[in-house]
Structure formats: structure tokens, C-alpha cells
């Protein structure tokens, strides 16, 4: 087994009004960043996960996201396996 850092990005579904994103966008315009056309505000979670492979880590975190981390009615999520720590595997034996 290896350890992975898995990032889950949760964002409001397209078409859903995102008042937080709008407020940030408004502030950016006031600060003279007119090149920004939209801002969507979500959240990022970082999970330390033990798994046999990056694929397995991703599959498990997808399951977690569907069950708990994101609300399918209002949110989309993306899962990225960020960092594979291979030291455990290289140690052999365990």
C-alpha cells in the first residue's frame, strides 16, 4: 500500500446562482481587474489516502465524493491524485 494526497475540487453546478462567486467578481472589478468575466467559488479538500495504486485512490475518493463530500443536486466535483509517496512500496515486505 502507498499513501496518496488526493484533492477534491467541489464547485457549484453550472447554471446555479453563485452569490459568493459574484461578490468576489464584483470586488475584482472594483480593484481594476476588468479582464475577469466570471468567478465561481467552491471548496477544495485534501485527503491523505492509503491505496494500492493512484487509480484505486481515485476510485475510492470518487465514491466518498458521491456519498458525502459533494451534494449531487447542487455541486460538481473533480478528483486529482496529487502526489504519490512511493517510499512504503519501495521498502518492500509490508
Amino acid at each position, binding site marked *: 500500500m502507498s499513501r496518496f494526497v488526493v484533492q477534491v475540487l467541489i464547485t457549484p453546478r453550472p447554471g*446555479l*446562482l453563485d*452569490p459568493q462567486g459574484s*461578490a468576489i467578481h464584483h470586488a475584482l472589478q472594483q480593484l481594476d481587474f476588468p479582464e475577469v468575466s466570471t468567478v465561481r467559488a467552491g471548496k477544495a479538500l485534501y485527503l491523505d489516502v492509503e491505496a494500492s495504486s493512484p487509480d484505486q485512490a481515485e476510485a475510492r475518493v470518487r465514491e466518498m465524493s458521491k456519498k*458525502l463530500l459533494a*451534494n449531487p*443536486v*447542487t455541486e460538481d466535483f473533480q478528483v486529482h491524485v496529487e502526489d504519490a509517496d512511493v517510499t512504503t512500496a519501495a521498502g518492500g515486505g509490508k
Partner: protein
Amino acid sequence: MKAAVITFPGSNCDYDCFHALRDQVGADVGYVWHREQEVGDVDLVVLPGGFSYGDYLRPGAIARFSPIMESVVAHARRGGAVLGICNGFQILCEVGLLPGALLRNESLRFVSRHVWLRVENARTIYTSRYNKADLLRIHLAHGDGKYHADPETLARLEGDDRIVFRYVNRDGTVGPGSNPNGSAHNIAGIVNEAGNVLGMMPHPERAVDPVLGSEHGLPLFLSLSENLSTAGAA
């Protein structure tokens, strides 16, 4: 009527619900801690308001997996009455007993004030003591109360008369200024298809006594007491 008020870590309206049920309508009511497995032999389960699990992740998202919830869902599926108020409404949506979700208020601010509700459906077990179009002055306090559902769900809720309470102005009209949180269709409370599960953001339990500034929530508890006092109305 026998009732159970579920207490989660972070519930803060559990005593208000207990008071409304026991002292105002004479129900046989007890608290059930969220780690319990069984709601017991009751007619009504109340999921009270508050901030279960600190509203972490999303309001209701973690409470929905509390051990007691399996029994609450089973009670609802058997046709038992489940009333979710505020955080309770959020939990009911998260657990799938009611459709849709409660999002951050459109203003991004916590709203705590009295609002006016219009009774849209007086033929539920929760509203039989009201008349359709009655106007109720009820307190509301939440940061995440904007009801959201996809257009098909909203159409179904409208078509099946499942919107029980709507936010209105003092004159009973839906219009500018009537919607405290940006809820779709001014929805303040809905029932499930069978009509035994009600979720609402405003707090009827805070309007059961003149000393609280309003008694407009009392008929809701009286309706339940009348309709659920089966088995000899002991």
C-alpha cells in the same frame, strides 16, 4: 400523540420543539440522542433546528449519517410523520426524504427576523387547523435557507400541491421584498409525495405563545396532535 425530538451535536431548537409539543399541545414527548439506533414507538419524529456538526461541509451533510437517521428514514417510509425545521429541513434534503437542497442565502448574510408565510396547502396532517391562504408571522433564522431544485422538481412540487408554505409580504402577495433568502418559487416549506414528511425553514415552535410574539405556529402542532392521536387518543 407520542413524539421524539432528535438531538444532534449542535442542535439548539430541540427544547423549543419539546416545549411546543409537551406544554402547548400535551404530547408525550422525549428526546432521542443522535447516537441511538431507534426512534421508538412514536407518531412523530422532529428534527430540530441548530447547527448539527457545526454545519461543516454542508448543513445537514454529516448529521444525515448519524446512527439514528436509519431509524428516522424507516419511520418515514412506514408513513410515520417527520417534521424537519430549519437544520432539520436541511437534513431531510441531504438524506433524500425531501427533494432539492438548501443553499447559502442569496444575500450571503445570516437572516434572523420575523417573516410572513402564506399557507398554500391546508390539507396536510401539519396544516389541517389552518385555512388555505392564512397568513402567519413566524420567526426565521438561518444562513443557508435558499431552497433550490431543478425545474422538473419545482414543477412537480407546484403541480402536486406539495408547497405547504410560501414566503409572502405582509399583504399576502409574492413580490419584491417577500423572499428573505432567494428561495425558488418563494418556497418556505414542502412535503414529500405521501405528505407525511414536512420540511420548513421558519420556526413554528418559536410562535406558540403570546409571550413569544406570535401564536401562528401553534395550529401546526395542534394539527399534528389531532391527526396523530390514534390508538384511543390517550
